[in-house]
């Protein structure tokens, strides 16, 4: 796998919020067909890295390359049209629009050419959304909103899916459902997934490879299994959380 060129390549990225440096030279690769997860504590810079890939904020130093093309300084809306889709932190669905309208928004940039087909696929993955299709987004439960956020991102037929904390604030059974759907997308559709998570146990079990971030730098990397068995990881992120 590592012989080929990575789909997404992050090299020496440094991102600032004003004068405060959030990322201190991050290197990370995501290969085609992989699930890669980035774990770390609150405020480690995980979401910042994901947002840097999307172009808000832009990296001050270093580069982000997607499909061999430098996208570091492209505007966000252009990056999101190149085959990258994102389910943002906090879901950010459109609360007054219906589930169906939310999904249409996801495929809008791609022109909704395969809307019917993509809709069927989304409803297959998340049957709950089908039941709720005429309901307003804001009336859905947290889990359903997360499903909607992922489904909406998929409507543009991305090659790379960025997921920012999909398990945030959800019941364990819903988390399992969502992670199963992600695995299914990767297995059946060959979708590449870059997953930022705090729920280290679930994320590492799912992912092919993982990175651990501490204070804006990558401290460890390895396959999901390797990281799960490491003592440092266990102590820092899994203590009491393995269930």
């Amino acid at each position, binding site marked *: 796998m590592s012989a080929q060129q990575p789909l997404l390549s992050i090299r020496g990225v440094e991102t600032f919020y004003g004068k405060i440096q959030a990322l201190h030279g991050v290197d990370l690769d995501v290969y085609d067909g992989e699930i890669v997860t980035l774990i770390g504590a609150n405020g480690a810079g995980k979401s910042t890295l994901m947002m840097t890939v*999307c172009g*808000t904020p832009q990296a001050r130093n270093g580069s982000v390359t997607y499909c061999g093309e430098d996208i570091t300084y492209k505007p*966000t*809306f*252009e*990056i*999101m*049209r190149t085959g990258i*889709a*994102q389910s*943002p932190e906090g879901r*950010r*669905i*459109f*609360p*007054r*629009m*219906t589930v*169906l*309208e939310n999904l*249409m*928004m*996801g495929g*809008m*940039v791609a022109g*909704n050419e395969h*809307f*019917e087909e993509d*809709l*069927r696929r989304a*409803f*297959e993955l998340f*049957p709950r959304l*089908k*039941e709720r*299709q*005429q309901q307003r987004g804001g009336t859905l439960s947290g889990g359903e909103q997360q499903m909607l956020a992922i489904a*909406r*991102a998929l409507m*543009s037929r991305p090659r790379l899916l960025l997921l920012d904390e999909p398990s945030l604030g959800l019941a364990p059974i819903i988390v399992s459902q969502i992670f199963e759907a992600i695995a299914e997308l990767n297995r059946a559709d060959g979708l590449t997934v870059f997953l930022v998570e705090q729920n280290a146990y679930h994320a590492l079990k799912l992912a092919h490879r993982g990175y651990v971030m501490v204070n804006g730098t990558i401290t460890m990397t390895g396959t999901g299994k390797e990281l799960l068995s490491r003592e440092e990881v266990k102590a820092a992120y899994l203590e009491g959380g393995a269930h």
Partner: protein
Amino acid sequence: MMQARQRDSLFVASVKDSLGGALVAFALACVMVGLKVDVASGRGAELFLEHRWLAVAIAVALVFVVRLGMNMFFWKREDAPSLGLSGFLPKGGLGDGSTNLLKYGMLVLAVALPFALMYYLGSRGSRQYIDLAILVLTYVMLGWGLNIVVGLAGLLDLGYVAFYAVGAYSYALLAHYFGFSFWICLPLAGILAAFWGIILGFPVLRLRGDYLAIVTLAFGEIIRVVLLNWYEFTGGPDGLSGIPRPSFFGLEFTRGEGGFADFFGLKYNSIHRIIFLYYLIFIMAMFTNFVTMRLRRMPIGRAWEALREDEIACRALGINTTNTKLTAFALGAMFGGFAGSFFATRQGFISPESFTFLESAIILAIVVLGGLGSQVGVVIASIVMIGGFEMFREFEEYRMLVFGIIMVVIMVWKPRGLVSSRTPSVALSKNAKGISADLVQEGHG
């Protein structure tokens, strides 16, 4: 079977509720209508009490019947609205059925209005009412134009009157300097207003919420102050007069040969032009509505609404938020410009005084009171506000007071405006395009 039972329980609940309403009405009417204190004529200042039980009976019966009707046919609630403040208006906003009924009712009324007025009041008596109707329709059009910016795209614009002014002055100046007719100037005024919308929008649309509101407010004032001070070009505070009137396919509304009345073999009457103006603004307003409703079902309209909901999510979905905002701004400005050139041609005279901040505030109030994003709501709010404003002209001093109270009351009862329900722009039904019926079935896939 099921339906019949539902209707039955609806009827029972409605009757109960109406009885309750009648009881309250009786209690109130007994004191307020039933007893009348009067000064006896002829015998100094002696007071005596008069009983009017018939009036009480009529009032109570009226409350009962109207409330029953509203319960049965308009509110259509399983549990008829309870007594108390929240019961005065239906909770979920006007339902789909009643909104449609209201829509078509208003449409028919609007088309028939001038003739009905002419029939009952004659041309002399109806003139003031048609004038008022024209004014209301102008505000309906402005409200619909601003609704694109504020209601759909969620951009708070406090300087909408600037585009109204640009439209009005575009027509007046083009007619003044080049002698262009109304029909050439109407599209030009719209284009110029849209152009100014883009010029303003480009630098400021990166701002959000309060900041955007302040900048648009300033822009509205700048336009007015420029018009006021550029004496050589705009006539400054003296304004521009002698703005040409519109013609009906080349027919002027003048007395004598070649005029509208002469051509159609009618007796010349100045009301013809008023009626023509009425239908002109009616068509312009309906055009605004038509375009807006069409766009709402198209990707750009859906993008506006998504933008109102969550800008960050929009960007994450690859939507160019700057362009999306700009189109909303430009389109809203264009309709403002159309309305402005209509205003100029109707008045025949314009001055910067007509384009103060108060106008922006009124248009914004119409949009907010009507319910952000609701087209029908804008119509109702325009009728209530502009119509009410003119009707109570005699109570000049109290107008603003009443105006304020009404606003507060509506915002307390219906914080999302009079028509707060939002119709989805897409539905999976059998005749919905491009989505097959098997997706609609439950419990499959």
